[in-house]
């Protein structure tokens, strides 16, 4: 089982307390009425689906209830870090340095 660090509870807890919530840092359109169908398709359905470190959202569902962001390596399933919603993307180079 994965152990996930909740940045709000500041505890590392079993995956079973959490739910997955898709890719992180996808901003809602500022002017929805000016979006074309292609823009909407891009916003709603297209995800980067990277192989390697992936920025994604999780929710501490059976706990504090908050959404937060994580960087998880989709190859090894290892969490490189988790951080509060609204915080900037962490620098990937510094996160992966220790893994080389």
């Amino acid at each position: 089982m994965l152990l996930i660090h909740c940045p709000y509870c500041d505890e590392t807890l079993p995956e079973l307390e959490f739910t997955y919530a898709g890719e992180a840092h996808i901003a809602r359109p500022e002017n929805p009425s000016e979006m074309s169908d292609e823009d909407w398709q891009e916003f709603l359905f297209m995800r980067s689906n990277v192989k390697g470190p992936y920025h994604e959202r999780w929710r501490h569902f059976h706990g504090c209830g908050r959404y937060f962001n994580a960087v998880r390596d989709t190859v090894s399933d290892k969490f490189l870090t988790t951080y509060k919603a609204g915080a900037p993307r962490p620098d990937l180079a510094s996160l992966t340095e220790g893994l080389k």
Partner: protein
Amino acid sequence: MNAPVSSFTPGMLVESPAARVSAAVACTRLSLRARGDLAPFEAALGLSLDGQIGSRSSSGVLEAMRLGPDEWILHGSKDAAASAVTELAGLYANHPHSLVDVSGREVSFVIEGPRAAELLTIGCPRNIETILPGSGRRTSFDGVTVVLWRDAETSFRMDVWNSFASHLLDLLATGCRELAAEIH
């Protein structure tokens, strides 16, 4: 046919030499959501809200646990809860918040006995030992969200939503018997 709502008569439900599960006396439960300056809320309620998630505080008549960054659950008598509602209503204009009576939503089981903590491991994926006596957590028990209060080393309360209560009680009863079967 409607399934009966779980209404347990306060008292012992399951008893074994390993652990006991009883239904707690009904209390009034308030859900509080608030952000920003907590001091006015603390003054109105007479308890501290500003601890870590899982920390608890009591005014003597009202007991609070912090469930999340902006969320608390309050337990108390009907009178204590009524006065909390009145006090907080006075704050509303300058400190918008949400205070909802959720008394009818849940029941509480009291789980105690020498192996109470071990009994909880049959449903809780997290390490029970990280919940120190005098604190608590919202967590998962057999996939169901519950609020655990650890009152002492071997004494817990578990707040459970009505619709899950009979299922969780069955599970706890099985666990009580299994743990007791290991005692010779």
